[in-house]
């Protein structure tokens, strides 16, 4: 016997012993397998249409659906069921907004459906509010309780029912508004931290359209962007990125130029040819200076020298930028984000409208236009701040019951608005969200919704294409859990009330069908995932009105004394989490921020000069304090920020938001002053001043791509 044979023999005998010692039972034997509901062809993928639920861009998606095993609970028993499962989301290639592409947030949204901390059944509060102590109840009991509560509210006669809904135009929001209207409640409130209301108001005054424009980047030769992170997360990022790619590389011999004006370099700023670090709140002055240099009338006072004095941008640079704009036509100016979140936001937006008029960019190729849309604004609703004020002061109609549809204002409002205190005073709160978050832990009853892949969904994009469309899709898969579509719950409750609500549709899908028009349009919509709804009473894109800026506040006012609070505080929309609504998705937690490469954490960006002056090095814990609150965050020394600015991403710092986001990082909204832009009432989230101090050594809070994760370091 040679050596090799000996080794083989021992291997065989030894291996046999090893096998005999371990009895192997297949995991399938230990689990209950439920009889599948549907006839499936294993191994064959089916592509279905979907609607991305993450932001209001309304992108159409393609859902790859395939047979798989899902862990489910049926009749109180846990087991496995073979069923059609959504496996992957991509952009719908025919869709005018997404054009076959999908952003990382959209890609990650599939984790909403399979999240381990999803709410899987109706819950009734057992412990104190905010404690998160709930007991499961049946749907029949839950609906009966809601109906009896609403009957009591209806009997009292006052406008006692209010609702907080998701932003954006959709039939879901229409149904909520209709429900409240028929019930005699208050108009629903859709609060957004990063709202574009200031821009909409400016466009109403300048152009007669209360909406966000659609920009024709693909045909522009130059874009000057005032704080608009249009390649990041603002507005309709997928369509904007597609247009930008065409502008930069889609035309042989022509490469469009991009100039980004902002005090903190965003993803768009990092992609730009030129980055102009302007003094916060003075972007409008630069826009008017450029308009003046381009020959706009009545702006004589905005000379380059005056612009330099006010904005800190050198006069020669102003002249050069104006020269560039004049030479490279068509050119367009974009404003969004922080410039609009000052107390003079409306002035800034209208100044950029003036610049666009001077550039001839309005309603022109390579410029900006407005998507025709039905101007069905459902009455003027109160702002969330006014609602909170009224609840706390006892003014107006008392809110006896509040419906919350998957939004989290406790996390996204400044402490000065006292939204949490106001919620605590509401006698009865019902939440429809998929997850327990900072707001829904205040609820008395939680009626979890299906995920967007399990129900009928739609969206009417405000921007991103000049075609007026409805993106619509049916369920891609059967529900995994004991949830119910919120739309069905509302319709069910409406029928069961003592005085059933009149004039509601029979079903939500019937409502969707009515919203797109006739049978032919519905057939198109269900086949391709969207439909053009041109010619059904839409307002065209004819422009009117003046573009001369007349709003009251010209110069910004900041909260906090500059001597005591020397830094401008600039929260910015996180690439991964937006305002925090996607912080529960682990793929997005794991996604490195494109500028800082940070993940699973928050950070505070600080200029290297400022950092060395204050003795702060990369990763040090710093304390950021305003007159309204204090937070701690690791410092990230970055050259892409002005010396007098501290910037922080939003999205982390949830008290309650699943295992992945709870207690992780800190929330910059908690130091913001409650200042608003006076004419729209929108939160001026960039108008707070802060002071900073180093409070400690790096403690592993800042996790960057390529470094060891804190969780895996053995000595911790």
């Amino acid at each position, binding site marked *: 016997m040679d050596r090799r044979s000996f080794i083989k023999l*021992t*291997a065989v005998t030894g291996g046999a012993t090893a*096998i005999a010692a371990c009895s192997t039972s297949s995991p399938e034997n230990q689990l209950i397998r439920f009889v599948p509901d549907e006839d499936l062809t294993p191994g064959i993928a089916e592509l279905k249409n979907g609607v991305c639920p993450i932001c209001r861009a309304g992108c159409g998606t393609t859902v790859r659906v395939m047979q798989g095993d899902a862990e489910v609970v049926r009749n109180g028993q846990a087991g496995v069921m073979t069923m059609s499962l959504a496996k992957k989301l991509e952009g719908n290639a025919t869709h005018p907004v997404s054009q076959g592409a999908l952003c990382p947030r959209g890609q990650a949204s599939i984790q909403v459906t399979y999240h381990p901390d999803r709410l899987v059944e109706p819950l009734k509060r057992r412990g104190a509010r905010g404690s998160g102590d709930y007991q499961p109840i049946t749907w029949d009991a839950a609906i009966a309780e809601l109906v009896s509560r609403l009957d009591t509210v209806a009997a009292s006669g006052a406008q006692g029912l209010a609702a907080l809904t998701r932003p954006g135009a959709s039939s879901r929001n229409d149904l909520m508004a209709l429900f409240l209207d028929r019930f005699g409640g208050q108009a629903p409130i859709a609060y957004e931290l990063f709202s574009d209301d200031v821009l909409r108001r400016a466009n109403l005054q300048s152009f007669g359209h209360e909406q966000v424009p659609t920009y024709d980047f693909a045909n522009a030769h130059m874009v000057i962007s005032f704080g608009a992170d249009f390649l990041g997360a603002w507005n309709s990022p997928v369509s904007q990125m597609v247009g930008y790619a065409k502008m930069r590389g889609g035309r042989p011999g022509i490469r469009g130029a991009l100039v980004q004006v902002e005090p903190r370099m965003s993803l768009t700023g990092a992609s730009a040819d030129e980055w102009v670090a302007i003094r916060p709140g003075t972007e409008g002055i630069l826009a008017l200076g450029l308009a003046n240099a381009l020959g706009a009338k009545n702006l004589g006072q905005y000379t380059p020298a005056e612009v330099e004095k006010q904005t800190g941008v050198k006069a020669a640079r102003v002249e050069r930028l104006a020269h560039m704009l004049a030479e490279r036509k068509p050119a367009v100016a974009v404003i969004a984000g922080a410039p609009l979140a000052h107390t003079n936001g409306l002035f800034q937006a209208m100044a950029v409208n003036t610049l666009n008029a001077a550039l001839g960019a309005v309603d022109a190729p390579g410029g900006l236009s407005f998507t025709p849309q039905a101007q069905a604004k459902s009455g003027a609703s109160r702002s969330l701040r006014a609602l909170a004020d009224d609840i706390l002061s006892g003014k107006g109609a008392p809110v006896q019951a509040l419906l919350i549809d998957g939004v989290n204002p406790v996390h996204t409002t400044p402490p000065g608005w006292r939204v949490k205190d106001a919620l605590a005073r509401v006698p009865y709160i019902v939440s429809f969200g998929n997850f327990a978050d900072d707001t829904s832990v205040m609820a008395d009853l939680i009626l979890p919704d299906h995920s967007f892949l399990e129900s009928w969904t739609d969206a009417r994009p405000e921007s991103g294409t000049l075609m007026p469309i409805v993106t619509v899709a049916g369920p891609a898969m059967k529900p995994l859990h004991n949830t119910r579509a919120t739309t069905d719950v509302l319709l069910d409750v409406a029928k069961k009330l003592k005085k059933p609500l009149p004039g509601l549709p029979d079903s939500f899908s019937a409502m969707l069908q009515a919203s797109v028009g006739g049978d032919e349009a519905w057939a198109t919509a269900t086949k391709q995932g969207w439909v053009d709804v041109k010619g059904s009473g839409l307002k065209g894109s004819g422009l009117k009105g003046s573009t001369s800026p007349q709003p009251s506040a010209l110069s910004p006012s900041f909260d906090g004394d500059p001597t005591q609070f020397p830094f401008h505080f600039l929260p910015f929309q996180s690439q991964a989490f937006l305002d925090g609504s996607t912080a529960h998705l682990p793929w997005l937690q794991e996604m490195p921020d494109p500028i800082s490469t940070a993940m699973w954490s928050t950070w505070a960006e600080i200029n290297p000069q400022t950092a060395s002056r204050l003795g702060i090095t990369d990763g040090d814990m710093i304390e950021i304090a305003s007159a309204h609150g204090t937070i701690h965050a690791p410092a990230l020394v970055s050259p892409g920020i002005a010396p007098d600015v501290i910037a922080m991403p939003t999205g982390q710092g949830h008290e309650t938001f699943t295992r992945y986001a709870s207690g992780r990082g800190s929330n910059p909204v908690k130091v913001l002053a409650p200042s608003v832009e006076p004419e729209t009432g929108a939160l001026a989230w960039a108008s707070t001043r802060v002071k900073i101090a180093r409070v400690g050594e790096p403690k592993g809070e800042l996790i960057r791509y390529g470094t060891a994760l804190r969780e895996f370091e053995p000595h911790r």
Partner: protein
Amino acid sequence: MRARCWIVILALAAGASACTQAPVPANVFTPAHANTASAVRDFFLIRPIGEQPIPFPHKTHVEKAMLKCTETCHEAVTKGPNAGIPSVKTCMICHDSIATDRPLIMKITNDYYKKGVDLPWQRVYGFTPEVHVRFNHAPHIRSNVDCATCHGPIAQQTVAERTVDHTMGFCVDCHKARKASNDCLTCHF
């Protein structure tokens, strides 16, 4: 070969201790095997023979009931990669009225179908993920390969047994004989 022998030796060294307890996550990440014993079993192509919930008589269904394999029970076989195993609903199409007095039929009716629970059939043939083979039934059915070529005399069996070893040589021989592609990417993709 030498590398393989070393793997075996190392496997044996660790094998005895690893198999007596539940697999403990090791510091070294390996996607392939839960523990050393499973690696050893896989190396020698030793797989557990699953215990089926009932001794399903293939012979009776094919010969007496005259059912066609690909039309009644494994109908996905003509459409895609997997033949598919029918759910208890398919059984009840006939056994709602046929042979309802037999103990095993009563068992699947009462213990499974009426409770909404499916039969926990165990896989008999198939590839492990580590061998990186993707098999697709449909083209084989289209080119009239008989079921028995790969599954043996299953029409004569009661409980399905693995009688043919699906080694690479087995596949390649048949592909050669039938002039089918022997490109690596035909199966390994």
